[in-house]
């Protein structure tokens, strides 16, 4: 059908526009396929865009007559060719400028977490008993390092920092193209293509940041140490992702699409970012649902704090309705992490209670469990700021009336006004002692049992005193109680060991009524000396191998022993030596001088065996 001649200027405009479009039809010519308009020539690009505008204008101007119907089809066809071309151009520009972000420069040293000096030196446990530690999860874990709270003491401000992802010229080209595409009804193509190219760039950036695609199963199978370093890396990467990558993408979408329509820039943003965001958070989610064990507490708290810090930025970046699910997921993960922390603490408390090792620590020294627990709660006090908000309920303790022998009870009446966290810490110490009491019963020697309790409770006291936060939470009242406890144990030890030894040095039973001359039963006296010597040697030999690690405590106990032993022996010797020396072989009975005993006491609780000869040598 022939078109009516139209000398109208518009028609010429239309025809030349059509010509331009057809010239660049990549399905029609090799040349058109090879070159990209927007790469070639600014002028070409402008001409092309004008041509598209012209065609669009004529489409909307077309009258709905039968003749025009044919026109319309042709115009549509031309538009489609133009749109296909523009799509290619759009994609090309995008891909040219969609390389992964240089992420190294993005780690802002001032915003990264600093690790303060570790408050708690690794306690070298050199007297590891031959426990069945492989079965005992609690003891198996030695503190590798005590990286104290990085982020919990450091509440960061927003880490949003938009960077320019593309040069301004590219952006304006994209905008020009997008406007035409969208006004021709090719919005969907635009969004989809934009999303797929930008998402690909995001993927590369993710790889550079070290964000891995790990399944929940993968994470479950990893060793905790490996996970710890991944968590650290994730925390750093997440800040960059949310604050820089996502925020910059959002900005880019706004720059390109906002003047066309606000929903559009949002749709493009979500198309780009939804998948990566879910992938990012899936790691934190997997950690939050991983099996709970005590050593995980601190890294989980780090993760929790990092995510909490990120929340405001997450809400700022993902502020549209379509990004609801991401915000919701982040909040869910946060609350799961909090739950995990609570659960771990609870699990920790149960584990202490249940800790089953029965083999007594040689020498009655500090049990690895005690070290572990006290180190642990010292670290907890470092994370006080976070934990105080997370721990909201009191520990579940045994009740006074439950009659359950396997759980200690704790009266909370005197602990009014303490935070739940503090109550938990006190409870942990209560449970620890309860467990230690049970362990002490495995010593055959009652004296050693008391020494063991004394050592361990003293250690607890020292650790509490050594940490101001811990001390403040535990409170001086309870501290006093603990102090009383180890002093009591010391007294019990002395009674257990020395009463019978000193019994040998008593007066009664030695005097025989009747004869005037001696008044003292020589045979009984000799027995006494022999018994005393034997007992003392035995005690000396045995208790030299016992250990009181704390120097001051060791000294104090020795002094206390000496204060009772030496005067008693001195007075005994003074009163009765003449009777022995007047008989045969006095050296068999009076083996030791006072000085000998004084020196011997110094051997006590050193943890080294001494030989009997050593004792004798000194007496020569």
């Amino acid at each position, binding site marked *: 059908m022939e078109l009516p001649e139209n000398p109208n200027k518009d028609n010429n405009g239309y025809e030349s526009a059509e010509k331009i479009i057809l010239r660049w039809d990549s399905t029609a010519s090799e040349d058109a396929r090879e070159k990209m308009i927007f790469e070639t020539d600014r002028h070409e690009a402008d001409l092309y865009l004008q041509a598209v505008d012209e065609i669009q204008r004529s489409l909307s101007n077309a009258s709905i007559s039968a003749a025009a119907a044919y026109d319309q089809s042709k115009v549509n066809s031309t538009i489609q060719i133009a*749109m296909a071309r523009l799509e290619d151009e759009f994609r090309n520009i995008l891909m040219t400028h969609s390389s992964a972000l240089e992420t190294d420069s993005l780690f802002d040293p001032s915003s990264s977490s600093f690790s303060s000096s570790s408050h708690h030196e690794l306690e070298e446990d050199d007297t590891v008993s031959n426990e069945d530690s492989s079965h005992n999860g609690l003891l198996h874990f030695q503190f590798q390092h005590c990286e104290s709270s990085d982020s919990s003491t450091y509440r960061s401000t927003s880490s949003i920092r938009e960077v320019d992802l593309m040069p301004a010229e590219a952006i304006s080209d994209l905008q020009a193209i997008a406007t035409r595409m969208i006004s021709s009804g090719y919005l969907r193509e635009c969004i989809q293509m934009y999303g797929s190219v930008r998402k690909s760039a995001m993927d590369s950036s993710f790889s550079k940041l070290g964000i891995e695609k790990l399944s929940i199963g993968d994470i479950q199978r990893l060793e905790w140490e490996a996970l710890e370093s991944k968590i650290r890396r994730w925390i750093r990467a997440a800040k960059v992702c949310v604050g820089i990558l996502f925020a910059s993408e959002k900005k880019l979408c706004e720059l390109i699409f906002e003047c066309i329509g606000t929903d559009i820039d949002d749709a493009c943003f979500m198309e780009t970012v939804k998948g990566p965001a879910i992938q990012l958070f899936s790691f934190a989610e997997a950690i939050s649902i991983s099996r709970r064990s005590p050593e995980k507490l601190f890294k989980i708290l780090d993760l929790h704090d990092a995510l909490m810090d990120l929340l405001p930025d997450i809400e700022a970046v993902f502020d549209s309705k379509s990004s609801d699910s991401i915000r919701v997921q982040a909040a869910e993960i946060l609350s799961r992490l909090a739950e995990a922390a609570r659960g771990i603490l609870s699990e920790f408390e149960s584990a202490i209670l249940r800790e089953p090792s029965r083999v007594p620590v040689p020498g009655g020294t500090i049990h690895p469990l005690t070290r572990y627990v006290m180190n642990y709660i010292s670290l907890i006090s470092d994370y006080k700021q976070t934990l105080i908000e997370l721990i909201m309920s009191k520990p579940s303790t045994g009740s006074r009336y439950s009659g359950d022998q396997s759980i200690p009870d704790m009266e909370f009446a005197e602990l009014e006004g303490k935070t739940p966290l503090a109550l938990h810490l006190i409870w942990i110490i209560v449970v620890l002692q309860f467990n230690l009491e049970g362990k002490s019963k495995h010593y055959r020697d009652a004296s050693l049992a008391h020494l063991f309790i004394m050592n361990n409770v003293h250690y607890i006291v020292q650790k509490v005193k050594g940490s101001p936060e811990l001390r403040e939470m535990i409170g001086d009242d309870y501290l006093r109680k603990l102090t009383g406890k180890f002093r009591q144990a010391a007294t019990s030890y002395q009674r257990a060991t020395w009463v019978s030894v000193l019994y040998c040095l008593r007066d009664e039973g030695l005097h025989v009524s009747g004869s005037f001359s001696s008044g003292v039963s020589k045979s009984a006296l000799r027995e006494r000396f022999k018994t005393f010597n034997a007992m003392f040697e035995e005690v000396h030999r045995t208790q030299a191998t016992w250990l009181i690690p704390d120097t001051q405590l060791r000294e104090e106990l020795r002094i206390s022993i000496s204060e009772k032993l030496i005067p008693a022996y001195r007075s005994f010797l003074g009163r009765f030596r003449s009777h022995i020396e007047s008989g045969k072989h006095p050296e068999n009975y009076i083996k030791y001088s006072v000085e000998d005993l004084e020196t011997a006491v110094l051997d006590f609780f050193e943890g080294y065996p001494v030989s009997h000869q050593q004792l004798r040598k000194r007496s020569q």
Partner: protein
Amino acid sequence: MPSTDYQGSSSPLTNLGRSFLPLRRDQVHSMESPIGGSPSNEAELESFQRQVADRFHDLASVPSDELLSLPWVRKLIDAFLCCQEEFRVILFNNRTPVKKPPMDRLIADYNERAVKALDVCNAIRDGIEQIRQWQKLIEIVLCALGGDNNSYQRSLGEGQFRRARKALVDLAIAMLDEKDSGQALAHRNRSFGRHNNSSSHSKDHHHRSLGHFRSLSWSVSRSWSAARQLQAIGNNLAVPRGNEVLATNGLAMPVYTMGSVLLFVMWALVAAIPCQDRGLQVHFNFPRQFPWAAPIISLHERILEESKKRDRKNACGLLREIYQMEKCSRLLGELADSVQFPLNEEKEKEVKQRVNELKQVSDAMKEDLEPLEKQVREVFHRIVRNRTEGLDSL
């Protein structure tokens, strides 16, 4: 409580279907079970088995054109959530025996299985997103050919057809199962090649699109496998032995039941929705004595049969809507290839018909995809919550 017909058979499991305690009640009492063996929870346990059975009978009684449709899949997940909730109640009502061996180990095993299902949930979520991408391509086709309600009825011209064909090609590529991409790509090139671009350009274009679609498709690592995950879920899923049933006061049965339901539901989801390495060769072995075994086995067979059909063998997901989408778009594509311009009335009617069919599929999907995603997420949450509760109660 129906009396059990214990005929003194040597196998204590012969009468499993009738009651959980395979021995007569008086024998149970006389056996001094460590729990005290009170059958007070028998009613509860029996009701659980019955409800599971009822739900799956319901699911199994659909005609084949409803099987594996989006509404059906949603119903399946609902059924799972209900079963799980009832299971949780049973565990709660029997808190004390649950903590004792061997029940504690059985529960721990179940929880481990459930955790493995979490990765499947995530993979399914990905798959749903994939389907959404396809659906967006369909929207382009509909937009081009007047299937969406926005464009007023214009007569369809060459331009619109080209636009539609482009989207259809992209859709076809996107729906390819990874394994078959090379071969099918050539095939698609041929079927879409006539009115389309010259082969070299289209190959470039397709490769580029393919590259895009593939690299972004999965958010799991390349080594993750749905098939392997399913096998892990089904690992060591064994009918409880008689002594286990006794020792746990019958509670071993619901644990086994729940594990089986979990396995089947995850398997069905993997069958329906695209995900990485979708192997369906998981061994199912549910003893027919359980009232729910028959419907589940029947569903399993029907789904397997579907997967073996000639035109579904290479499908990336057995979801009925995917099939419809693929069929409609293919037919439309063939039609689009064969038209001459200008369209005669007959052709135009044909095109409009196909477009309508496609629109129906698209609308159905649009309605159900988001709720499905939410349901899958709910499964995820419930599994996590139940596991946490289980841990806390220790």
